[in-house]
């Protein structure tokens, strides 16, 4: 695998299960066993009801584009060749919103509320990123 030069995620004791899940090709987030809330970012207890009774749950990997931007300025040298690249905020079916890059779609073809589905991008041997593409009709 070619050397990956883009920034890598800051893995912590709290978000380790998220990154482990992506490595297994599963999108997972904590879900409260008391109130049912699924939340992002990871937290030590439910941010709604403060219950510590939660479990990591596998999600559908489907969502919609809540908003997006296109970078025309290369802030990171590692993204220079990608200019202009998109960053989208995807709202998952289960509620939480994730920042991501949309793939397999031109920047001019992105629309608000566009249905998208997850693509697992193994960027290094340890790290897999959750990216999204327009949902393919079954």
């Amino acid at each position, binding site marked *: 695998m070619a050397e990956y030069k*883009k*920034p*890598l*995620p*800051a893995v*912590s004791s*709290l*978000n380790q299960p998220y990154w482990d899940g992506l490595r297994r090709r599963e999108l997972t987030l904590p879900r409260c066993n008391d109130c049912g809330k699924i*939340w*992002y*970012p*990871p937290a030590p207890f439910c*941010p709604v009801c403060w219950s510590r009774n939660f479990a990591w749950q596998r999600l559908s990997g489907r969502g919609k584009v*809540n*908003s*997006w*931007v*296109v*970078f*025309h*300025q290369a*802030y*990171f*040298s590692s*993204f220079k060749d*990608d200019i*202009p*690249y998109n*960053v989208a*905020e995807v709202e998952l079916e289960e509620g*939480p*919103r994730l*920042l*991501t*890059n949309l793939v397999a779609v031109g920047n001019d073809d992105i629309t*608000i509320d566009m249905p998208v589905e997850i693509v697992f991008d193994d960027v290094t041997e340890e790290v897999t*990123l959750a990216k999204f593409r327009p949902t393919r009709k079954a």
Partner: protein
Amino acid sequence: MATENLKDKTAVCGVGHTPYGRRLNRSTIDLAGEAIRNALDDGGMERDDLDGLIVSFGTPIGADADTLAYALGLKLKMYNQTWAHGRFTASCIQWAAMAVNAGLANAVACLATISFSGFRRPMMGGAGDSEGAREAGGGHGEDPVFGMTSPGAGAALVARKYFARFGATSQQLAAVPVAFRKHASLNPAAIMREPVTADDHQNSRFVCEPLHLLDYCLINDGAACVIVTTSERARDLRKPPVYLSGMQGLPGGREEFIWTYPGFGTSQQDVFDYRPGLQPVYQMAGATPQDVDALFTYDAFSILAWTALERFGFCGQGEAAAFTQGGRIEVGGALPMNTNGGLLSEGHIMGWNHQVEIVRQLRGECGQRQVADARIIQWANAYGDSLIYRR
């Protein structure tokens, strides 16, 4: 509400700043020292009259409070400092007001020093920007893993959502930078004074689309200082007091995203119709938005003027795009905003330059850009904090 006890109890008694410039090649301690001395001179005060310091922006962009205390030979009974974000302007002034009211200090200098040119790597976005490295991401939506970096990118997310949700356009947004540049053209201290048109805005390059270069504030150097004391003490000083009549703090929680109001639907916010009601700042001051003679806001990005107007009820949700057209927010209009030229055109002194301008407006010191008979001026931000000043 307890804060009503502070209404008009404290005042700004002196303001001062350095020249502002894109690249001043000056030490941050030097800049801070000049701003503090100018503010003391403005208020007819001496070094020994100053016994408190609150710094809004220290290392790595500005000078830290403890450094200034010993390097400048200040004689402080209290100092404090916020971390390197621009959002703390009102907070610093609120804490200063509480400190002098509680007797912790007699007079507190509130200060920001900015030297963006003093560092080899750009601090706003990219590898030199530590925001995205914070656990759970940056305060403006930074997530460098996906190339999401710089405060402006979070504002671009809000702008895209705003355009889609309310049917507004980038062409309409041009009214904000055009108005503020017009004000800067009347302000000798402003860095960017050449008037711009809506076409100039549309033709300027995209930085983070849908925001154009002219939607972005300046990156520059300078320092500005505001001295807060009790109203009783202020009345004995050189300049007429500018009273702090109302204040509300910086709200936080899952319903907050720095560049917009609750219910907007960015980050983890829910989506609902936002109705501000009468915000606490107005209750404390005994005023309403209709009483405000001029409005100042943290305009790091032009879209923030829209979300601030809606957050405080100057217009309804989704109405700021239309509200800001036709010169309404220009001097001579119904609600002049950022008469100094704002962060967009006077300079990015984290809103401290706006506080200086507010005080001067209320003293009638603003020459060509003076708002006629200004009595009540508000500082109110997209992120929800506010101050109401009166003369």
